[in-house]
């Protein structure tokens, strides 16, 4: 976790990569079926992303001529004398696709669902919940503020690929039968919103992406944990082979429904504020207004697969084999040691949902400094919209 605390971007990279061997061994030793292939595929993919972003960071270090890896020094220096446009474009491409692979940007996402489906619960919770956010953090802390012209150049790419995350991966998610595969794909899909937030390059949109990161980390960790609780009771991850679990495990059902609602973006949970602020900042400007409609389609898609999963697992007529298990009395409700982490996560989600200011105020303070003016973005005419956007943000968070 040190990666998020480092102002020296060399260590930022260093500590993220630190997690690679432990993750590999965790998946390999405690993972489920297909772990041999999944572990190595994930490691190769993540190394590729990490190395591309490392090249980008080295390029930033060498090209800027600042003999320091300190993010603050670099930021001060580059805001005074920005790099040439072509240099910015090249470096931003390295950082965008390098970090993009780490955040499962479409079409570099294929490691994520398979990796999470085979990973042991703890590894999946940590990786999807926390480690994956590393790439987004790099984009919003390093790439976008330091290379504004590069960001403007790649803006259409980010938008289209993020929409690919939301729409195409969303449709793929709907087709999943395995609970963990579905959760893996849904976490890929929700990253699309975060990318859209960053693509606005405004304090509001990026702040929304930040809230999204936090809330999604909580909700996806909760869902991965609950899916393993379901597996312990049903002995299968196949949703079509279950049904009626709520009769025996009502508390589990309640938690799962709540977590699903949170991930869909129901008001009251943290995810709502993330998505809402991202949409609000997209709608602020003429260039990005059209994105709101396809992005909102994603909410419907996630409602469809989320609620269908709830219906298949917990309600309806159980399959014959499953009826036997239900009647056999082996299935018990959520136990104490399972309730505690689930409660912590859900309380945190509600807390962010009801008082987003505990995060958004601090984020706002920092982000308005990093994204003070947008005059360097000639292709996106958001300059005039900035005060409005900040106002909107204040309204939203109050």
């Amino acid at each position: 976790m040190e990666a998020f605390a480092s102002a020296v971007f060399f260590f930022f990279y260093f500590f993220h990569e630190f997690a690679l061997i432990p993750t590999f061994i965790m998946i390999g030793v405690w993972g489920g079926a297909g772990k041999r292939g999944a572990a190595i595929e994930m490691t190769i993919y993540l190394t590729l992303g990490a190395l591309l972003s490392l090249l980008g960071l080295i390029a930033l270090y060498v090209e800027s001529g600042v003999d320091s890896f300190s993010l603050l020094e670099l930021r001060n220096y580059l805001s005074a004398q920005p790099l040439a446009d072509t240099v910015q474009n090249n470096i931003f491409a390295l950082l965008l696709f390098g970090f993009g692979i780490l955040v499962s940007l479409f079409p570099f996402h294929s490691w994520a669902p398979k990796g999470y489906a085979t990973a042991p619960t703890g590894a999946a919770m940590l990786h999807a919940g926390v480690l994956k956010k590393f790439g987004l953090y790099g984009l919003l802390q390093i790439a976008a503020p330091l290379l504004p012209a590069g960001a403007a150049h790649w803006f259409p790419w980010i938008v289209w690929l993020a929409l690919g995350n939301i729409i195409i991966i969303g449709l793929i998610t709907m087709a999943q039968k395995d609970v963990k595969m579905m959760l893996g794909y849904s976490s890929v899909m929700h990253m699309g919103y975060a990318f859209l937030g960053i693509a606005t390059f405004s304090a509001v949109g990026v702040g929304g992406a930040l809230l999204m990161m936090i809330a999604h980390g909580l909700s996806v960790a909760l869902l991965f944990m609950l899916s393993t609780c379901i597996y312990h009771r049903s002995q299968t991850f196949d949703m079509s082979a279950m049904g009626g679990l709520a009769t025996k495990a009502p508390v589990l059902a309640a938690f799962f429904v709540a977590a699903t609602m949170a991930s869909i973006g129901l008001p009251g949970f943290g995810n709502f504020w993330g998505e809402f602020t991202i949409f609000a900042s997209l709608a602020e400007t003429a260039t990005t207004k059209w994105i709101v409609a396809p992005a909102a389609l994603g909410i419907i898609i996630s409602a469809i697969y989320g609620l269908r999963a709830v219906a298949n697992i917990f309600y309806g007529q159980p399959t014959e084999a499953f009826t036997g298990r239900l009647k056999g009395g082996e299935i018990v409700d959520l136990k104490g040691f399972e309730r505690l982490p689930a409660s912590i996560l859900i309380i945190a989600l509600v807390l962010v949902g009801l008082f987003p200011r505990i995060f958004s105020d601090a984020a706002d303070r920092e982000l308005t400094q990093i994204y003070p003016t947008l005059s360097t973005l000639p292709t996106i005419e958001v300059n005039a919209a900035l005060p409005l956007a900040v106002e909107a943000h204040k309204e939203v968070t109050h």
Partner: protein
Amino acid sequence: MNELLAEFLRSLTATNDWAAIMPEIMLGVLALGLLGAEMVLPRAQQGWIARLAIWGQILILVVAFGCPSCCTLGEQSYFSGMIEQSDVSQIMRGFFLISSILVCYLGKVYLAKQALPRTEFFHLVLIIAAAMMLLVQSANFVMLFVALEAVTVAFYVLVAYCRTSSFSLEAGLKYLVLGALSSSILLFGIVLLYGVAGNPEMSFSTGDSLNFNELTTFILVHSDNMIVRVGAILVVAGICFKIGAVPFQIWVPDVYQGAPTPVTAYLAIASKAAGFIVLLQLLTGPFIGLSSFMVPVLSFIAAATILFGNFAAVAQRNVKRLMGLSGIAHAGYLLVGVIAALTVPWAQYAVIFYLVTYLLASFAVFGVMAHVAGSDDANQELEDYENLARKRPFLGGVLAAGLGSLAGIPPLGGFIGKLFIFIAAFQAGLYGLLGISVLGVVISIYYYFGWVREVYFSNPAEGVAEGVQSLCICDRVVLGTLVVATVVVGIYPGVLPIIP
């Protein structure tokens, strides 16, 4: 004639230049002492020979390089320009001494499982170490060639050391034939340069056309001369044989597989490092005038080396061949650093840093291999490592750390080594080579982590790795030190006083 000899001897004894190569002399004395000790010691006490070799070298290391002032001396020339010492050569002398100590340790582990003569093994290892230490100090082509041949001839014997194994004999024969070929190519190149630079009809011709400094000026003036270019290319080709760069890499897998594991480690680490330092000294020294001509050639070689090494290693199941092929890939990354050193001066220290991290990680891996191998160590397959972590968790951990460092994963030293090379390459503007290096590193993840996978992922059906002996305390100390050093270098690179 007698007068000449007397004059020669007088000039030798009149200088105190000998003090400059005291560590090499001490190594030679120790090597001879081992042969004497074998005659004196009774049969039951022969185990002392290995201990004598190891502790004697540690003593030499402490005596010769213990004081900090020894490591930071300026450029100094000895024996009328035959030998030149600089901070680079000082670091590398320590490097070779440390690697020969570790090879002696591996040899002790290896020979305990074999019915082979022992003393000669340690004797030859020490001779090679002394010769390599002289090699990196040489400032004259005669000195360079003599030292290089001393190394190579001793390696001919060591590679074929396991006389009972057909693999070892085959490897020895291949190494002999190709080594002799490469030496003759190198010699031919030297002769061409000697002839053209010594030709009195050429401008700036020199009386001592084997001396690096004299050659530097000559080649700077005549960088377009065809014979100079052919000579330089032949010299570089001869060295590329030693470092296993494409297209001179073909001997590597067979020789690495057949040679006894300690010898493989010695070839992979010290011999390659010696080749790189010589290449570095030649390219930044006498051949600096040919940079514009050398850079495209070397860039092509580096790219081909990285790609060949990595792609060939992917399908490999024999771990010794795997180490050989992945070593070719590492030679490619190092070549990128060497090319960068032509324009970015500090890049030569990045190369040395990489070599040090490579030494730490590779010896950890070879150490585990020496323990896991049975009496027939040429046939070590990846399957032999299944469940190693469960059976011998310590060896599993050491192997994971070593392979992780070779793959370049933080917080291990290999990452910092690669980082420095990448930064140097970026400053030199070698973007294409950087892209190929990144591709190579990503491919290497497959086979390095594939090996870790065999070690860690349980496979209940088969439980091999049964025959691995438990480790004694000194094994744990040596391997543990290597791993700790790898981690420390990775977290705090400043601990090595290499990058100025």
